[in-house]
């Protein structure tokens, strides 16, 4: 091989042919170009003119250059040029084994590693060596094949989200035992792991080993914890080094459901330190939304850590009765609850409608008796979706009829009227104490202080289900706390107030403990092995080596202790695991993990990954020469005028482009549609599916467009047919919608589009085409269909077009709106009820809005329709009156389009006298 700079030639003697190029130059110059044939009417004036000299023009120099370049490219291509020829590395023979760590640590540099492997494969292919692959994180016996066969499969190798374990190393050694001698290229992920040296020895016994390892310092993040009101984050690195800042991003979904970065923290590695720590303070709403933390710029599973329940604080919404109380309250009904919950939970106050969208974990209703239907329904949905409703009784509940006769869905039990009061000034008996909690109660095990007494309560009606719903009761057996489940959630009722008015319960420590037991406040105690004993956790989402979450699919469940103890591997991929309502994250690194940099013995050559790959360029040069020759053909034809017309030239250029194998990306149909609809004003009709109706509608809009074009400054392009399901509507100022009884009802998506279209200023002209015989009742099939179609639409109140509607004077003065039929009943959006006609004004002062719909049955399209030659398509009426009717129909169309385009502009003229009057003063 001959090497010139970074280009080598495998067959350098072919380059001698370059010497022949000057000869070619002379030969080509000697041949004159063929004459150009031109059509030219002025030839009559040329006849008889003689040429002054008889020397023809020569072939242009650039054409010669083009041909020379083509030939030179062929010669160079045949000489076998190779870019970046590998000259340093020893050229071996025999099988070559590629050992790849394939762990998460290499994920950040995976593309470079793939390139380096590819370069080595190219080299192996050139040397004719067979190649085998051994990925240590997924050890399989290597199969030695030709390097070219491996090249296509290279993209299929991906890093695993774990490190090679000793078991995997053993498996790899076993896999190699049955193979003959080979050389090894080891692509290391730069991290050390147990068993690596053993494997290296094994490999060295079989042949030479070269290692590829970058100087990158691998970073990893440890699981996040929540302490001292902040999220504590720790990052570690494989080798100590210079001071370095690392940005940690908290990722999650915003309320709209889009993934975004919710917070950023910076951790700084001190010089010589291998770990760094930082804290991230976030509002609890944001914190609850965090799904993972990752190190910015690092694309590996180790550089991201998933968050689970441990970071969450429960959100409790406190809702009291409406603010219709006359006097001041000395004590907020939530005082004790706030005291009990504020250390461990986030409290939200506000109305039910405001707090429900925040999706709190618990809602506390203090003495709220009745809820409106609009509140109760979303509240019920929220409970059924897993929410917990805690209600406290009070005078209002006692006085109301709630859950009196029938059990209220939002009450656990039926209540007796009035409640009862014991031990007061006007009653007998002593205040009642609590009885100990029974075994089935969630409060079981809590100590009942003797000083907790209840002097008033609401009473539960005895019901068959009462016994199982009582979770705490008084010493006389009356229920104090009752509970029922609703869907996935539950409703708990304290039969006393949340204040100390009715009982001393809120004053005691028991109250706090009871709330905790009810999981109103969440415990952030870490999961221990003992606590997880006997549970099974199923993977929901798992990480891949790059740190991307994906669905777990059909991976098997994992035992609770194993989830914490076992190292990650194919059977325990890192990811999110769930058991019941609980979610736990198993991260790549555990809290106490460390990473160290791999070192190599001196007899192993270590290379970096930055390799300029060897690249044969002969193919490119030969393609270039073919392209140049093709261009020469086109240019020669063009010079001699034999390229017939420009279209053929375009075709030739297109042919060349096709040969290039890079056809211009065809624009999508949607883009074409948008361009067609927006480059000019375009009228459109809705496709009904009835070919005849659609044809007439299109022809009608064409006729109307022609009329507009000739009479007004509105110059629409060809009308379009719009499919509600697939086409964008926003491009059209108005839609003509003929009604046929058999047309399909649009889908929900199409209706959403239509409603958006109507709300954002679009207009639909509905045409039942039945001469309005039904007066929009259901007595004609078209009328029925119209009612059915329009029901889901956002249509305001309608009225027949009043005499002073702006549509009667936007361009022509009109009082009739005929189409093929001449019915007066055309409906538009009703004027506001308070619109009044001012004395002396010809019409009312209606200033707002284009009507979003016009509904009629006059079959306007039929009157507007023109055939291909511009004549009317369908007969209208008889004789002159028919022509007149068609003319008025056109005028209605013109007025309608003007109304859509200019809105109430004509209505604004009303103000002119007033403005002139003011200017005069």
């Amino acid at each position, binding site marked *: 091989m001959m090497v010139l700079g970074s280009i080598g030639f495998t067959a350098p003697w072919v380059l001698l042919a370059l010497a022949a190029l000057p000869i070619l130059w002379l030969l080509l110059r000697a041949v004159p170009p063929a*004459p150009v044939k031109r059509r030219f009417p002025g*030839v009559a004036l040329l*006849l008889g*003119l003689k040429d002054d000299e008889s020397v023809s023009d020569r072939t242009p120099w650039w054409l010669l250059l083009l041909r020379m370049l083509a030939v030179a490219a062929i010669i160079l291509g045949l000489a076998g040029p190779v870019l970046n020829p590998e000259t340093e590395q020893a050229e071996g023979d025999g099988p070559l084994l590629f050992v790849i760590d394939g762990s998460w640590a290499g994920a950040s540099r995976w593309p470079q590693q793939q390139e380096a492997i590819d370069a080595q494969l190219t080299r192996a292919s050139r040397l004719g060596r067979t190649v085998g692959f051994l990925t240590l994180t997924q050890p399989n016996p290597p199969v030695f094949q030709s390097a070219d066969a491996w090249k296509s499969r290279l993209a299929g190798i991906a890093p695993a989200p774990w490190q090679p374990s000793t078991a995997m190393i053993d498996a790899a050694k076993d896999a190699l035992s049955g193979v003959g001698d080979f050389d090894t290229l080891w692509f290391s992920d730069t991290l050390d792991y147990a068993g690596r040296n053993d494997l290296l020895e094994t490999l060295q016994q079989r042949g030479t080993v070269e290692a590829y390892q970058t100087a990158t310092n691998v970073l990893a993040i440890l699981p996040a914890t929540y302490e001292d009101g902040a999220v504590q984050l720790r990052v570690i690195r494989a080798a100590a080094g210079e001071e370095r800042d690392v940005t940690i991003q908290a990722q999650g979904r915003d309320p709209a459901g889009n993934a975004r970065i919710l917070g950023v923290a910076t951790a700084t590695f001190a010089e010589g330190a291998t770990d760094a720590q930082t804290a991230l303070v976030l509002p609890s709403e944001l914190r609850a939304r965090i799904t993972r933390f990752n190190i910015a710029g690092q694309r590996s599973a180790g550089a991201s850590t998933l968050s689970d329940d441990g970071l969450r604080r429960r959100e409790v919404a406190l809702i009291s009765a409406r603010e219709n109380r006359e006097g001041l309250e000395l004590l907020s009904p939530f005082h004790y609850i706030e005291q009990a919950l504020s250390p461990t939970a986030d409290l939200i106050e506000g109305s039910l409608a405001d707090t429900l969208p925040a999706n709190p974990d618990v809602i506390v209703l203090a003495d709220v008796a009745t809820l409106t239907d609009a509140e109760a329904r979303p509240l019920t949905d929220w409970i059924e979706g897993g929410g917990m409703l805690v209600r406290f009784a009070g005078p209002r509940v006692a006085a109301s009829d709630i859950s009196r006769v029938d059990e209220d869905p939002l009450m656990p039990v039926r209540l007796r009227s009035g409640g009862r009061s014991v031990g007061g000034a006007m009653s007998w008996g002593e205040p009642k104490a609590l009885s100990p909690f029974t075994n089935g109660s969630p409060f079981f095990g809590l100590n009942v202080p003797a000083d907790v007494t209840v002097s008033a309560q609401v009473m539960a009606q005895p019901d068959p289900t009462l016994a199982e719903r009582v979770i705490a009761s008084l010493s006389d057996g009356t229920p104090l706390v009752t509970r029922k489940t609703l869907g996935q959630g539950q409703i708990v009722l304290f039969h006393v107030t949340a204040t100390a008015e009715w009982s001393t319960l809120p004053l005691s420590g028991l109250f706090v403990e009871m709330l905790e037991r009810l999981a109103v406040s969440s415990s952030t105690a870490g999961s221990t092995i003992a606590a997880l004993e006997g549970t099974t956790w199923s993977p929901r989402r798992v990480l891949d080596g790059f740190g991307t979450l994906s669905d777990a699919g059909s991976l098997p469940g994992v035992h609770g202790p194993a989830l914490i103890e076992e190292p990650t591997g194919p059977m325990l991929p890192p990811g999110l695991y769930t058991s019941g309502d609980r979610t736990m994250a198993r991260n790549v690194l555990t809290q106490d993990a460390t990473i160290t940099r791999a070192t190599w013995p001196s007899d192993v050559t270590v290379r970096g990954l930055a390799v300029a790959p060897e690249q044969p360029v002969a193919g490119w040069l030969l393609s270039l020469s073919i392209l140049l020759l093709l261009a020469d053909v086109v240019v020669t034809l063009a010079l001699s005028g034999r390229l017939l017309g420009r279209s053929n030239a375009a075709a030739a250029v297109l042919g060349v482009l096709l040969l290039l194998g890079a056809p211009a990306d065809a624009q999508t149909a949607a883009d074409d549609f948008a361009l067609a609809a927006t480059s000019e004003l375009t009228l459109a009709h809705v496709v009904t599916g009835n070919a005849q109706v659609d044809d007439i509608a299109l022809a009608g809009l064409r006729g109307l467009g022609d009329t507009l074009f000739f009479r007004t400054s509105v110059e629409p392009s060809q009308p379009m047919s719009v499919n509600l399901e697939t086409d964008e509507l926003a491009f059209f100022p108005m839609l003509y919608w003929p009604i046929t009884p058999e047309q399909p009802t649009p889908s929900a998506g199409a209706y959403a589009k239509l409603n958006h279209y109507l709300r954002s200023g679009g207009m639909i002209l509905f045409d039942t085409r039945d001469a309005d015989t039904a007066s929009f009742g259901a007595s004609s099939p078209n009328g029925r269909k119209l009612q059915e179609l329009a029901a889901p639409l956002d249509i305001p109140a309608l009225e027949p077009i009043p005499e002073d509607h702006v549509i009667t004077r936007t361009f022509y003065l009109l009082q009739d709106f005929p189409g093929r039929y001449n019915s007066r009943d055309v409906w538009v959006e009703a004027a506001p009820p308070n619109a009044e006609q001012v004395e002396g004004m010809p019409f009312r002062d209606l200033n707002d809005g284009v009507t979003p719909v016009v509904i009629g049955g006059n079959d306007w399209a039929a009157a507007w329709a023109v055939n291909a030659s511009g004549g009317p398509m369908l007969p209208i009426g008889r004789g002159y009156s028919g022509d007149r009717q068609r003319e008025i129909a056109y005028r209605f169309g013109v007025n309608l389009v003007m109304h859509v385009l200019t809105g109430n502009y004509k209505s604004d003229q009303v103000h002119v006298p007033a403005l002139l009057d003011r200017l005069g003063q």
Partner: protein
Amino acid sequence: MSDPLALRALSEAEAAALPALLARAEHLAGAVLLGAHGRRRAGAGDDFWQYRPSQIGDSRRAIDHRRSAMGDTEFVREREWQIAQSVMLWVDQGASMRFSSDDAIPQKIDRARVLALAVTILLNRGGERVGLTGTALPPRAGRPQIMAMAEMFCRDDMADYAPPEHRGMIPHARAVFISDFMGDIDSVRTALTKAADRGVRGVLCHVLDPSEEAFPFTGRTVFQSMGGSMSHETLKASDLKTRYLARLAERKDELQSLCALTGWHYGVHHTSSTPQAGLLWLYAALDAKAVAA
């Protein structure tokens, strides 16, 4: 009538071309506002011109009794003379007209047809009678004539250079000739002299492609007429430029002097300019004639 089916198919194809031409011409004509078109003197017409005292010889039926009742004198209501003029058009349909040097520029024949039809529409609206020279389509008034004219304009002539049609000229009518006048100049001379003999005056509209004015050709070239009947080969086209331009100027001068002799108007229209410009000139030239008449 060799084959009725073929004829039918041909007619359909021709009819398909019509609306487009008609629409463009209508659009163009819409740009020109029609002025009052009276003769500014008493005559037969619809519009009121003046009351004059009745004279001997006036028919009794001509007396306007409403005016006469206001006094003792008898008045006759005179109307403005609005006699319609006949205008005859000739559009060169020869092959040489089917030429355009660029895709963005229409063919000469395209422009000539649009101009002719727009003039037809304008004159038609003004109440004039419009037709073709020759015997194929004599001047008539009314909208159907526009259609008939459009149909006639859509016929292509296979000859390379068509001579002007000068038969069937109505005496004292007006005429419009639209052509590139590349063919034999003698035929034009004959036509104009014959027209002048009959008192026909009019307009010569010389339609030229920009490349015919500029002659932007170089290199070894074989020039062919559109029909292929003539050809001229040169080794260096650029050398011919000055001589060609001189001949073209000579041709224009000749036409100009012919027009001056016979009292016609002569104008050049380039296909690269807007049709409005050509139409306005044509209309003004015809109108100037009208005032002079």
